[in-house]
Structure formats: C-alpha cells, structure tokens
C-alpha cells in the first residue's frame, strides 16, 4: 500500500514536471523577454519622436488656464485636490522669508493677499510631470504598470496598476496622485492621446502667453530644440539624477 502510493507520487510528479514545466517555462520566460522594436500603432511611429517640454517662468502670468484645460481634457476629478499640472507662486518678502502657495493649483487664479510693499520679488512657476529620463516612479513600480514609451513619455496602465502608491512616494516632484475612482496611480501623460495625433498638450495649447512649449527633441527644428540650443536652461532637483525632460527658463534657486 505504502509502496504503491510512493511509486504513484514518483511517477506522477515526473509526468507533471515533464509535461508542465517545459512549455510553460519557455512560454513564460522566453516570450515575455523579447521586446519588440515595432510601434504599437501603424499611423504613428514612436521611434521617430522623443518629446520634450520647456517652461518659461519669466512669461507665466499665473492665469491657471493650463491647469484648468488639463483637468477638462483628461477628466481629472475637478473638485478633488489632485492635479496633473499646477502653478506655484513664489513671493520673496522683504524680511527674507519665501512664501510659496498654489491655491487649487492656480485654477481659480491668485489674489494678492500680501501687500505689495512687503514683497521684494514675486513670480509664478508652472509645474508638470517631468517625464524623467531616469524616472524613479518607473523604477519602483513593482508590477510594470507604469513605463516609459519609446518616445519618452511616462504612462500609467490603469488596467494593471495595483494601487500600492509606491510611485507616488518615489516621485520627487509631487507629480503623481491617487485616482480614487480607478484605485490606481494617475499622472500627466503630456496628453499622449493628443501628441500622437499631431496636437499639442492641452496645457501648452491653453497657455495665452507661450510660457509652455512642447516639441520633439529628435527634430532639430522643433521649438524646444531651438530654445535648448540657445538659452541657459535648468531642470528641477537636478541633484537627484532623474534627468527631467521639462526644461526651465528663469528658474529661481528656491524653486524645488
């Protein structure tokens, strides 16, 4: 009795191992490992583009139309404190203190609640996901639900994200938020549905003063390359080594 059972397990296990492991392991490992060079859709070749973004802080008037357009373009919950882009206001007081704020991301505009006499200098800084070349959010996603596309945009797969929020913790720029409705992380896509159709991101299109510029880094004639070739630019938190692709003109040292 005992012997036959042992024999059964022996034979059974051999059959199972032989039958299951071979094809399954090959399927699981080999197929999943090969990354294709092709583009996901025929009408747009993502290998021909590499997107970049320029923010000219010296032009920004703080009207908040960018943040407004973004919420409406991308169905970002309008009444919740979650934003794919926002405008910060910096006011350096005469006593040396730096006052920073961004009420409702600037969508409702800014009001002067500190008298002008007390202010030394003041300016606005638009913020958006930096679509870092070396993105910490992509690095920390445990399941591969956020990724960098071949054209340099960082996206979130809403069907696959488990909602652990590690990426939100890892983003040094506060660009990510938790989408309560979907139960996933969410963030700016540079309007991937627009730029792959030849349109501009909604925020760039909405800006009335041209403080936001968007273009193809692979195209030497693009507006972004023209600025990068000519101007002195900076990025946010360069010391973290994230290599942002949102480049700033006129960035103050106190902007983080």
């Amino acid at each position, binding site marked *: 009795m005992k012997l036959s059972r*042992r024999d059964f*397990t022996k034979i059974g*296990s051999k059959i*199972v*191992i032989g039958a*299951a*492991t071979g094809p*399954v*392991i090959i399927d*699981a490992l080999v*197929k*999943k490992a*090969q*990354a*294709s060079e092709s583009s*996901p*859709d025929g009408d*747009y070749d993502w290998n021909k583009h590499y997107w970049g973004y320029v923010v000219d802080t*010296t*032009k*920004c*008037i703080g*009207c*908040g*139309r960018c943040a407004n*357009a973004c919420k*409406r*373009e*991308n169905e970002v919950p309008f009444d919740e404190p979650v934003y794919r882009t926002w405008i910060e*206001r*910096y*006011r350096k007081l005469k006593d040396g203190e730096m006052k920073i704020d961004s009420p409702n991301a600037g969508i409702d*505009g*800014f009001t*002067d609640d500190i008298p002008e006499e007390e*202010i030394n200098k003041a300016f*606005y800084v638009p913020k958006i996901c930096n679509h870092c070349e070396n993105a910490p959010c992509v690095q920390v996603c445990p399941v*591969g*639900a*956020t*990724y*960098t*596309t071949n054209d340099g945009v960082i*996206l979130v*797969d*809403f*069907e*696959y994200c488990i909602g652990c929020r590690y990426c939100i913790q890892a983003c040094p720029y506060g660009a990510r938020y938790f989408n309560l409705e979907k139960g996933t992380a969410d963030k700016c*896509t540079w309007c*991937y*549905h*627009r730029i792959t159709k030849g*349109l*501009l991101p909604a925020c760039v*299109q*909405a*800006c*009335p*003063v*041209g403080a936001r510029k968007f273009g193809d880094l692979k195209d030497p004639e693009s507006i972004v390359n023209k600025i990068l070739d000519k101007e002195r630019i900076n990025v946010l938190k360069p010391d973290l080594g994230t290599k942002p692709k949102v480049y700033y003109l006129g960035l103050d040292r106190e902007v983080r």
Partner: protein
Amino acid sequence: MQPHLKKAFTLLAIIIIAFIFVRSIAVPDSFGEYGWYRGDSVNELRNQPVEHAGSQACSDVDCHKTLYSIWSESRHKTVNCETCHGPAEKHVSNVRIMPEPANDSRDFCGLCHYKRVARPGEFPQIDPVTHGENLRCAYCHNPHKPWFV
C-alpha cells in the same frame, strides 16, 4: 532521502509548477511586447478622447471664419479659442452640441489682466477697483480684437 521528506518536496514542487502554470495563463498576452509592461495599454491610452480641438478647427468657411480672421490678427491671437470658450471638440464633430457660453465676467478676464505682483511687469494689467467702473470688460474691449474700444 527519507520518504516523508520526498513527499514534502514533491508537494512543494507541485505547488510551484501549479503557480507557473497559472501565471502563464494569467499574464496578459501583450505584456512584454515592448518592455516590462502591457503593450496594449499604450493604444488604450492613445484612444482617450480629445476634448480641445484647437483654434484651427474654428476657422472653417462654414463656421467662424470671419471671427477667426479678426482674432488671428489681434493681440489676443496667442489666446486659443478654447482657453476662454472651453473645450469644443464635441461641438466641432457635431455642431448641434453647443459648447458652454464663454465666461465674460470681469473676474474671468481678470485671471490674466488684474494687477498682480507676481506677474511680469510689462504684461497689460488693470487695477479692478479703479478701472472701468465695474462694467463688463467686453462693454469697452472686444475680446476678439482688444485695444479697439
């Protein structure tokens, strides 16, 4: 090896094989197509509907050609139609769907033009208290062609 240990390890092996098997079924087919992610999600995100059509979409002969040509030569030409009028892609694809009316309140124009200390000084700004006697801005200024009263 002792038979009981053999059994234990066989059990373990079966569990592991079952896991590998389930995994091979459960992982989406497009996963790993381009990288360590679900390849299909790229197109899913590309298929998100466009909401802002862009000013060019308003310029059609049968639509707002006249207004468009006035605007496109005015100082407001950098202000996209939809920045004031709101997203209009639905209206462009079906004219029966009317976009929301443009906000013509003083405060809306003030988002750009009220005097604010953080704004670049050369940008045209007014003091809402002293300027225009609380009238709607459009009473004097044509938003499509400002600077002509």
